[in-house]
């Protein structure tokens, strides 16, 4: 039985994600009380906003420990936008702050945007060149997805075989998709990307326990 959880950590609205999950025929549970452990099969960590602020919430809600247990029990996590950035070790928005540290990389401002005269934030649809994995079943390569962000992860250290990465470009190449075992992250917003986004979310919910 699939049990979809959406974490509501008060960084950004979860309404669009909720609508998309609902449309796909699932009845998600919204978790905003972090006293208990997180129980479910698929967890979405959405987020729009500020890394520093979100990092404080991660510590306040003891999210790391709770997500660790969730993953150990075979659950799948999908971080969206700021939610993906938080899966990395560090963020530098409004000062340095720690992430959940599942991937070793830094989230920093687009460095080449200003020299290429590209405005920030990066807002709109951009191509995503993605790996050929289950989450991308039935989705063309590359495909267009909606982005809205000023900070990005440029590279990841310690590459391993089960680490799969997707790229996009805005003045420079950056990581727009990442997966490793049961951890997934998208810098774009599938819930705001028409059919492509719905397909990706559907594929995520169809992943079966490890």
């Amino acid at each position: 039985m699939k049990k979809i959880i959406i974490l509501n950590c008060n960084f950004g609205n979860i309404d669009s994600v909720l609508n998309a999950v609902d449309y796909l025929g699932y009845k998600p549970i919204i978790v905003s009380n972090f006293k208990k452990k997180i129980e479910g099969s698929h967890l979405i960590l959405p987020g729009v906003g500020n890394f520093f602020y979100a990092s404080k919430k991660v510590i306040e809600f003891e999210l790391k420990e709770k997500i660790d247990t969730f993953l150990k029990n075979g659950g799948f996590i999908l971080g969206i936008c700021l939610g993906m950035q938080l899966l990395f070790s560090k963020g530098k928005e409004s000062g340095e702050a720690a992430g959940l540290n599942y991937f070793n990389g830094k989230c920093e401002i687009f460095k080449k945007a200003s020299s290429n005269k590209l405005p920030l934030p990066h807002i709109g649809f951009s191509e995503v060149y993605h790996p050929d994995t289950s989450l991308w079943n039935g989705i063309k390569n590359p495909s267009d997805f909606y982005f809205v962000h000023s900070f990005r992860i440029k590279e990841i250290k310690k590459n391993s075989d089960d680490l799969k990465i997707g790229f996009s470009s805005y003045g420079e190449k950056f990581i727009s998709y990442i997966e490793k075992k049961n951890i997934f992250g998208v810098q774009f917003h599938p819930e705001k990307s028409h059919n492509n986004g719905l397909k990706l979310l559907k594929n995520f919910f169809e992943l079966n326990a490890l």
Partner: protein
Amino acid sequence: MLYKRIIFALLFFEGNFYLSRNFRLQKVGDIDWIKKNYDFGKTCNSLDELIILNVKKNSNINDKKVFFNTIKRIKKNFFLPLTLGGGIRNFEDAKEMFEKGADKVVINTLFYNNFLEIEKIANTYGNQASTLMIDYKQDKDNQYFCYKNSGQEKAEPINKFFIEKINKCLCGDVIFNSIDLDGSGMGPDINFIISQVFKKFLKPTLLMGGFGNSSHILKALNIKKISGIVTANLFNFLGNGLVDCRKNILIYKKYLASFE
């Protein structure tokens, strides 16, 4: 690569959608009427973003309830970024819009009257969360001025100081909306956006006002610094209008994203 955007703006007033011509409103119909007569779903599926503005001044609790109920219905079936606006006077007004499903909010008068509130919005929801709408027109001496309070009150000249002020504003997109061309379908104000004063402009630039057909849109998208266009021209672009327009533009240039 980042694609350019075609954004549709719906103007909402007491339960109905309206057309605007030089900032004067004409009633079109409610959401059911638009859905039935203009195949609204088809339009939404070929848009990069949707903006819905509650243009009633000093909306009371009931007006807001009607507005947010309509938003809820629209959000249920369409999966694209939604920007809401109209009457945002402080952080709390913006917060309410985010809580009712906005991905971004439109700010206008706040920019002139209370800059600090925009910072407050940015600190909680991020810089990208506010879209600044600048309503402007040319005076008799051909000088461009921006206007606040739904285009009724002359605010300040659009010069390099003004552009610097926007650059410093903690907002994302900036929509330049021509009051003179509003609803005219006569074509966009290209001269304005390519003028010298914009040379140092750093924000994503959206042009609004005057779009009547796909060649108008293509003409604007041809300009490098334009990130996208906004139209509220219901009669020209609903139904098959925008779907065809998107197809037409893609024949000439790969400016726009393709939605499968």
